């Protein structure tokens, strides 16, 4: 019968996906919970003392984790609103011009196709103050009468500034692209109607444009939050692999450091930290969705 044959074909087609998903997604998902409750797990002997919540309590009392948590939250709270806002302004400007528009769009998209670790190195050198040079950015600061600061090995706020600046630089292309195409999908007839009614520009923006693209802005905010909470490789790009020493570690960085590297070999701690991160991201996403239901206009 053809039906039986089709069923067989279907399962054969799905087989590779199921195998890979099972081994590398489903099993690890369950396993990470188990790890996180196994106390005193030893990587070499693959043995543990007992079950309990000690791993969580260890992680939550680890000053490095607290530092990572603080850094992550600062990055999230600064970069998500700021990058979304800047992307919105740029997209608005882009959609109101015709000449050179494609050129600008292409330029703004460039960071998306760069290796963030490689370009991060460029940013580090631009902001770094060494014995040989104050760095390009400090030259500019001096030009406006400011004093040179070492953004890479200097004071915490300076480091955080570069961190956020680079993060925004990296995430903007995607947001600009999405918002520009979303703005273009708003029927121009609404703007014409508003113009006939002598609507001031700011009112057109707040009363028409913003409500109409609000679903996309919230989508960008949610994905932005999730992305920023997972910040890691941009930090490595600027401050090197030893983020704890630089005081610039993030939650994800903490997880990897626990797993591997000089301070590594503690998959249980890493698992506990990963689950804490997951819980945070989950909570924030739910809050976001609840807020958006109240404020976002869906067609």
């Amino acid at each position, binding site marked *: 019968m053809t039906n039986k044959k089709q069923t067989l074909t279907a399962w054969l087609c799905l087989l590779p996906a199921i195998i890979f998903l099972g081994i590398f997604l489903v099993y690890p998902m369950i396993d990470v919970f188990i790890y996180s409750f196994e106390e005193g797990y030893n990587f070499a002997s693959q043995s543990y003392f007992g079950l309990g919540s000690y791993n969580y309590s260890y992680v939550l009392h680890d000053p490095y984790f607290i530092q990572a948590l603080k850094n992550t939250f600062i990055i999230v709270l600064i970069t998500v609103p700021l990058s979304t806002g800047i992307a919105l302004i740029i997209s608005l400007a882009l959609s109101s011009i015709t000449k050179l528009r494609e050129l600008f769009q292409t330029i703004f998209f460039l960071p998306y196709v760069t290796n963030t670790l490689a370009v991060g190195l460029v940013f580090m050198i631009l902001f770094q103050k060494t014995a040989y040079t104050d760095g390009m950015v400090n030259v500019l600061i001096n030009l406006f009468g400011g004093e040179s600061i070492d953004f890479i090995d200097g004071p915490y706020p300076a480091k955080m500034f570069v961190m956020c600046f680079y993060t925004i630089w990296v995430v903007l292309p995607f947001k600009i692209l999405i918002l520009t195409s979303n703005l273009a999908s708003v*029927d121009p*007839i*609404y703007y*014409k*109607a*508003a*113009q*006939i*009614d*002598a*609507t*001031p520009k700011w*009112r057109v923006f707040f*009363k*028409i444009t913003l*409500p*109409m693209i609000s679903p996309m802005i919230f989508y960008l905010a949610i994905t932005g939050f999730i992305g920023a909470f997972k910040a890691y490789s941009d930090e490595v790009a600027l401050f090197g692999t030893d983020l704890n020493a630089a005081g610039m570690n993030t939650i994800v960085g903490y997880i990897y450091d626990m797993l591997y590297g000089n301070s590594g070999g503690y998959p249980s701690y890493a698992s506990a930290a990963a689950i804490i991160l997951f819980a945070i991201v989950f909570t924030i996403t739910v809050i976001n969705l609840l807020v958006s239901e109240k404020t976002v*206009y869906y*067609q």
Partner: protein
Amino acid sequence: MKIVLENLTKKFPNRDKKMKEDVIAVNSFSHEITDGKLIGLLGPSGCGKSTVLNLISGLEKPTSGKIFFGDDDVTNLPPENRGVGLVFQNYALYPHLNVMENIRFPLENLRGKDKLTKDQMEVKVLETAKLVQIEGLLDRKPGEMSGGQQQRVAIARALVKKPRVLLLDEPLSNLDARLRLQTREELKRIQLETGITTLFVTHDQEEAMSICDSIVVMKEGRIMQHGAPQEVYDHPQNLFVAKFLGTPQINVFKGQIRDGGLFIGKDRVMDVNATAANGANDNRVQKEENIDRVQKKENSIRIQNKENEKTVARDVYVAVRPEGFVAVSDTDLKDILHCDFMKMEVMGRDTSIICTHEAFEGTVIRAIVPSESRPQFIGGEVCFKLKPSKVHVFDAETEEVL
């Protein structure tokens, strides 16, 4: 508010970039719209009628020419300063605002001495909602309403700020047939009640004829004819207008004028009384001539014969309204058009006779006669006498009326 359009021309760059020539949407368009009237701008799609509307609203700037509102030259004035109300074809209601907020939207834009308090706005919104009879729907969103209701909201939004001119772009095209009939009466009532000069664009001649004080027929960016609907229908100045107005469409034959008679094929259908004219092409003269033609004699048609030559045959188009046929049974009578009978459609009061003729320009001739005077046939042939007032003769080359 009187609106004067002076030599308006609007060119667009060609969409096909290989073609360097601009597309001329509106071509030296001059017209005066009388204050307080309902004017229909009529023409097939792509004739530039919507562009004229956009030029008046200010959404587009003319390439050349001038626009006056009363005595004010508004040609370069941005739309927001013109004080026009515009109803879009698909209504353009803000989907995220409810009816109340939509209608109130233009009022909230007023600044300076025109600024209104919340209560004043409320009063105006209710007043306008009542005018278009949607006062029960104020808290609905556009998505929750029928097309007809959205249409009313759109009109209310355009009217609430008391515009000097109301512009409607194909206002009825998105409604179903029954609603369309109802809404166009409504439009007429609202226009009469407010007395605002109203211009509306449509491709549906029936719509325009039924409610307008005056219509303007356009083709390829030019005015073909303007005037009161009945006047334009009775006296089309060219073949285009004759064909465009009236349903079923006018029947067009190839014909000839010779020997003081009008011929369709080999049938002589009518006498021709040629009046010598002085090649006058001026509108006014033509108008007088039109009045002249109303008094057509029984079975004869009066035309302007510029060459004043009766002997030389002249090719013409003969257009006959469907109601201009009188079915006759006696084939011996003179001035008869002989057609080949195809079929008959009885529609209660009237009967359509479908037939063909060798000199006919389309596929089938459609003649409408009262059902009680349905004809008898001889040999699959049907004979008609033509009512002179329903027959229009156009020059074969210029397609202008003779």
